[in-house]
């Protein structure tokens, strides 16, 4: 059990090192001659106007918000799904009730016109 996670940890370390190796190789092999034009922000040849960190459409944020709630709830379904085969039918219905509450939230967001790209 613990060894499994140790293995994953090693995998993580090596998995980070492997992409760094070609980056380092490139650092030594590639030419490096910076100049202001080359390093300017690329926007199809037109000079960039104003701040790059523009304010974006807040609809993205609303989707992220709905996603957060749904993500938390679906992840909680995993233990239930795992134990499903040995659960009583009542317990299965409990899980389904959980999903229905979730769907009620989705219906609410839908009815409120929140999912629209307005």
């Amino acid at each position, binding site marked *: 059990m613990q060894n499994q996670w140790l293995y994953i940890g090693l995998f993580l370390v090596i998995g980070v090192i492997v992409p760094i190796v070609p980056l380092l190789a490139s650092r030594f092999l590639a030419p490096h001659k910076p100049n202001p034009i080359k390093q300017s922000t690329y926007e199809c040849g037109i000079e960039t106007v104003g701040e790059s960190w523009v*304010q974006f459409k807040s609809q993205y944020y609303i989707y992220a918000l709905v*996603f957060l709630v749904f*993500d*938390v*709830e679906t992840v909680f379904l*995993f233990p239930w799904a795992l134990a499903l085969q*040995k659960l009583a039918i009542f317990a299965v219905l409990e899980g389904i009730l959980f999903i229905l509450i979730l769907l009620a*939230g989705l219906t609410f967001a839908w009815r409120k016109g929140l999912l629209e790209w307005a």
Partner: protein
Amino acid sequence: MTPDQFIFLLCAALIIASAIMVVTSKNLVHSALWLVATLFGVAILYALLQAAFLALVQVVVYIGAIAILFIFAVMLTRRELRDKGPQLNQNWGLSAVMAVFTFGGLFYILSSWSGFSAKAVEIPVGTDPLRMLGYALVSPDAYVLPFEVASILLLAALVGAVYIATASKK
């Protein structure tokens, strides 16, 4: 020092260092990214505590959703964070003192508790905490009520957040 302890200390150093960066970094997106590092460290701790499910939920929920939402929120409210001026208010000294006192107080209370340096018991072979968690979450004599209430809480949060976020549009 055993390997376990070594990993714990590394992980604790990561958590503390990045947590300090979270509260002191001037750039809020950096703060949020440091928060990701902290949360990842906490996930490693859960794995160390043999709570594999919670470790992964930590990554999925915190890094995959909450951190993303934070970064989105920072970018939505960017006009103010052009990093001008200090990011700490004038009471930061007092706050630091309070934080240190809180830590000292907690440490004192904990160290006078008898179970402070308890050792872990081995999880009995053949038990599967994850599957047990599955039973516990939906069986009526265990935690079905908190489970459903959590779902309703999240529903309420969704409704509330959506209401607040859209009400100001009009």
